[in-house]
């Protein structure tokens, strides 16, 4: 807990109104140039809510007396808002965990430090899509931390029972789903959560769509491009034919949907694997991993969310901050500790070669041993499409999409209607904010 500032309260109350008026209109001057090399001992504050990171901060601090990192466990739903306010009031930490979407959102509001120059030496360690996630609009604002490439897990025994095979393409998946429906109405091939349009994001990413595409000095908005509509059509078919269950991933008993065989395949990722043994008491040992279905088998792509460590505005030592963040997420020492399930971090590296870290995250009892789980995971990590970009109002768009997504799940509107709406909405919103954008194609 911080210091007690009794006097500040009384004094500040009076001077407050004035300072508020002044600061409310100040957006900040922005132009932090961050190229200089820091000399001497420094202290950095770092907010995160990933388990196991604190221990690594301790390891770093021992070995690097010149850059001491103060770890703050910033759990909770409101951390992004707290960061915003902290930046505005000038007491932000130097570094914070974020996801790609929020990094873009913060960058768009000028709340991050452009570290393109000091980060450049670390670029080669990470995969291209991971680096994209910290570089919205071309400038780099952070260092990738972890990735979660998608692949498929399916009930091998039930697939056999229903006479279907692991789907290679999305069309395979839909056909398999229909075949299962013919035999048992209650069994679904897939799940789409009602709160979570990420299924559509993932499909669009895999289809090679670009909702936001930077074209020189403006954005091209492509929610209704052929690729995006192709992805939307898969969702539409799953909805129309009742091929997907609607278990919410936030539902405390969500895994039962699969454990009891109501839904027989799922899109999954690295961070979920370590908790499977405890959550699939009935069906463990019957599962098998496969590559995520593709749109174009000749050029299979998957998608991934990225955890990143962002460098906030006002950070005085961006070089040290980048150095620490890069050590945390790319050094063998740190990654070996963090990818150990014992750390409970759920973290999977965003570095180019993930093979040393794969074996430990594979659960012992979940899979039937008939496919090479490690191979599936490394393949997924190498197949993440690198075209996806986060636009400046991505977070607001996502919020708008969430509202519409619920309606799509309830069959009140079609995916195409939703995409058309989002296309218009994003263009109008960007225009009202003074950002240059045109419809793609």
């Amino acid at each position, binding site marked *: 807990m911080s210091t*007690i500032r009794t006097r500040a309260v009384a004094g500040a109350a009076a001077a407050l109104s004035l300072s508020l008026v002044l600061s409310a209109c100040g957006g900040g001057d922005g132009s932090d140039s961050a190229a200089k090399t820091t000399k001497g001992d420094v202290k950095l504050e770092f907010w995160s809510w*990933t388990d196991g990171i604190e221990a690594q901060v301790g390891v770093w601090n021992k070995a690097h007396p010149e850059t001491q990192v103060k770890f703050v466990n910033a759990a909770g739903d409101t951390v992004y808002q*707290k960061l915003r306010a902290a930046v505005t009031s000038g007491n932000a930490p130097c570094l914070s965990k974020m996801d790609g979407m929020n990094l873009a959102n913060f960058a768009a509001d000028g709340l991050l430090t452009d570290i393109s120059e000091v980060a450049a030496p670390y670029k080669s360690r990470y995969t291209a899509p991971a680096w994209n996630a910290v570089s919205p609009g071309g400038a780099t604002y952070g260092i990738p931390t972890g990735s979660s490439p998608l692949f498929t897990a399916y009930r091998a025994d039930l697939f056999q029972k229903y006479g279907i095979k692991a789907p290679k393409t999305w069309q395979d998946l839909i056909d398999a789903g229909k075949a299962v429906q013919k035999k048992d109405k209650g069994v679904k091939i897939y799940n789409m959560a009602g709160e979570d349009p990420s299924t559509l994001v993932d499909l669009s990413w895999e289809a090679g769509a670009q909702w936001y595409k930077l074209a020189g000095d403006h954005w091209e908005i492509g929610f209704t491009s052929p690729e995006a509509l192709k992805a939307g059509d898969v969702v539409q078919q799953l909805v129309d034919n009742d091929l997907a269950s609607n278990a919410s991933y936030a539902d405390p008993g969500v895994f039962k949907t699969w454990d009891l065989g109501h839904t027989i395949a799922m899109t999954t990722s690295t961070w979920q694997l370590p908790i499977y043994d405890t959550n699939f*008491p009935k069906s463990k040992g019957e599962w098998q991993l496969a590559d995520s279905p593709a749109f174009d088998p000749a050029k299979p792509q998957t998608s991934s969310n990225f955890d990143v460590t962002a460098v906030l505005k006002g950070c005085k030592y961006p070089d040290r901050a980048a150095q620490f963040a890069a050590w945390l997420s790319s050094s063998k020492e740190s990654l070996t500790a963090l990818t150990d399930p014992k750390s409970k971090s759920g973290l999977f590296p965003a570095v180019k070669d993930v093979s040393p870290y794969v074996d430990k995250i594979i659960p012992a009892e979940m899979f039937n041993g008939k496919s090479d789980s490690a191979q599936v995971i490394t393949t997924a990590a190498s197949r993440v499409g690198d075209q996806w970009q986060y636009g400046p109002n991505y977070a607001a768009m996502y919020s708008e999409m969430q509202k519409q997504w619920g309606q799509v799940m309830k069959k009140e509107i079609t995916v195409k209607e939703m995409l058309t709406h989002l296309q218009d909405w994003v263009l109008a919103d960007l225009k009202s904010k003074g950002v240059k954008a045109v419809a793609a194609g």
Partner: protein
Amino acid sequence: MSSATHDAAAPGGGARPTRRAVALTTGLLIVFLLYSLAPTWFLLVASTKNQTDLYSTFGLWFSANHLADNFQAIWDYHDGVFGRWLLNSVVYSTVGAAGSTLVSLAAGYGLAKCEFKGRGALFGVIVGASLLPSTLLAFPLYLVFAEIGLTNTVWAVLIPYFINPFGVYLGKVYADTSVPTELMEAARIDGASETRIFFSVALRLMRTGGITIFMLDFVNIWNNFFLPLFMLNGERSFPVTLGLFSWVQQAQTARDMNTLVLTGSLLSIIPLAVFMFALQKYWRSGILMGSLK
């Protein structure tokens, strides 16, 4: 009015109700009692299970007992931070309610016993403010506190807790009803200063009211998670409600937290329940005063 008279007055005196009426009355009460208790029963049962049994065994009855394991898991989590949360809740609730009680009684007393220009208007503003949802204010309040560097200190939650317009309203009601102006006059004639009159005469007379304000505040603060959610950062400063919320959120992401959430929920109820039932007498009489006067 004391609570004792109410208890004595409760059972009907006159005509004896028929046996059927008694059975019906008791039956209905039992139904609602079960309704009130069943979810708590679920919580009790669930906190004895491990993650696997939680979903694979019947929810309203016990399976293998893992209560001790769950306590251990809670204790192990981030070096026993849960204990810290409980302690924080006790501190925030006690200090916050005590401060609020004092501030409210003083202000209520000032409003009730001293005539000054604009008193009526001020009272109106206070009543109006007591209607403003605290959730609504939390957001701008956060921005203001961030400006003056108060966020993430204990003061960020304590100061808003101290200021409770409804407490002032209650304070005024209690001062009106339980501090006779004649007594104050008498004390004045004896040469007592105004502050002395307040502290040694008025406060004593308003004791029941004070305890009521304290209890209501204590419960509110214990239950509040919106303000700490905005103001506090870094889990060691969380009250237990916010700590549980942070667990719920993690339950969605990387790890199995549901057993911790459930057992922690059970543990978090106990201190408040003990507090409430220990002070039940005051609580009821105070409510009565507050709501009827």
